[in-house]
């Protein structure tokens, strides 16, 4: 089976810092993968490269066999770290927007999730609390039948109860043939849902393994291993 993400010697530099230095990675379909690393380790840069928001300096990056572009944007559902929806629209307009641009968007599922959280579809994005806005963003992103879900810090800014909702929404809604890549530094919270983990530090992949292997071979939780690897 073709890997969903395949990158070879991927390098990205910003003025004054090397964000990714020669990353090699393959992510197959049907997995929930944690992209784990401390702040500034290159997680967001990697996700932005996959989305075509940044262009690599060198190396190769293929999503479902294509270089990032219109074709790959059709199959990727991306949740950026920050709130990114149009403030002046209400939820219903935002759903129509997604429906218009993404043929794989499932409107009924979006409204269903909104109803379960008692979010009013007529409410404007601008008037929502930060937590509600993040939930709406996640609902929109997870209502697509995408091949690849790239979620940048989906649980970063919310309380523990909302974290559970978010993780349940992710595992309850992703396309089982596709893969989910979750970037975060809150390991303990996501560990339970992950199949594989990738540790990244200073732009380099430190470790790439399945959670089962880590538990069996090292007899440690991912959280414990993370604390060991990234000890300050």
């Amino acid at each position, binding site marked *: 089976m073709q890997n969903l993400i395949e990158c070879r010697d991927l390098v990205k530099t910003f003025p004054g810092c090397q964000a990714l230095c020669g990353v090699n990675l393959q992510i197959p379909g049907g997995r929930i993968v944690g992209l784990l690393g401390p702040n500034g380790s290159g997680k967001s840069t990697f996700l*932005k490269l996959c989305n075509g*928001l940044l*262009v690599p300096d060198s190396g190769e990056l293929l999503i479902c066999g294509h270089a990032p572009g219109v074709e790959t*944007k059709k199959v990727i559902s991306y949740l950026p770290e920050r709130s990114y929806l149009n403030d002046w629209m209400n939820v219903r307009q935002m759903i129509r927007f997604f429906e*218009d641009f993404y043929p794989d968007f499932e409107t009924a599922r979006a409204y269903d999730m909104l109803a379960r959280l008692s979010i009013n579809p007529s409410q404007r994005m601008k008037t929502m609390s930060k937590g509600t806005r993040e939930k709406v963003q996640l609902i929109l992103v997870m209502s697509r039948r995408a091949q690849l879900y790239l979620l940048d810090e989906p649980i970063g800014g919310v309380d523990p109860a909302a974290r559970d909702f978010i993780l349940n929404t992710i595992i309850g809604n992703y396309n089982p043939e596709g893969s989910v890549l979750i970037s975060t530094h809150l390991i303990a919270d996501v560990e339970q849902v992950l199949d594989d983990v990738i540790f990244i530090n200073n732009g380099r992949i430190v470790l790439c393994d399945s959670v089962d292997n880590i538990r069996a071979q090292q007899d440690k939780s991912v959280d414990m291993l993370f604390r060991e690897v990234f000890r300050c």
Partner: protein
Amino acid sequence: MLKKLLKYEFQATARFFLPLYLLLIVLALLTRLTMSVTFESNPVLKNYLVDIPSFLLSFAYGAGLLSIGLVTLLLVVQRFYKNLLGREGYLMFTLPVTPVQLLWSKLLAALVWAAASTLAVIVSLFVLFADGNVFYLLGEMFSSFFEALAKEAPHSWIVMILFLAALIFGALHAVLEVYMAIVLGCQARKNRILLGIGVYIGLSMAEQFLMSIAIVSMALMPDFTMALLYLFGFRQADPDTIYAVLELFLTGVLVFELVIGGVYYFVVRRMLIHRLNLE
């Protein structure tokens, strides 16, 4: 996909423009009404009921005219800066569309609104001043214009087309110059707006310099001076020379707009593809 992008672009901007156009026309209508009321029998009442409201309304109408210009400019800047290069850029640049389509959706919408704003101002002026006489004069003007156009074809048509093309590409060039300044300003981590304004001033100065060189070199051509003398009536008119020089001049303007606008277009396009630096 460009169609869909344009649909949302117009949705996002119409909510500012349409109420503003309506307000301007209503203000023009009210100003005209107060101007047409006469209350000569009672000077005190006339002062309170006619003169003061009329003064305030015409002041508001003037402010409306000014704000249409300002809002058009601000929205050209804001839709590009906020929707593409601000945090909304994460949404727009991950849609299954090309950066070029995004650029054209902004450009075309800006062009349409600039034209619509001009039209709204013209309509409001009509509401304010037009009467039978004005329409009669305009009718006369247009009919003699079209007569001249028909009589002096094909030269007159060539000049018309060149003029319209220069107008459209001039507008595109003006919008692209703003985009260029924004895109370059956004390459900085801090003080993006300040840098953008600096770039804009720099670009305008460079253009002025180029333009003055072009005008001086044109003025040095003997034919050109001759044509100016003809045009201002110092000599007996020779239509062929006038047309030849007009065509040359307009072609020069068009080439200037195309070259400078083209350079901006390719730089902005390249930056959006390769050097997108979202907040």
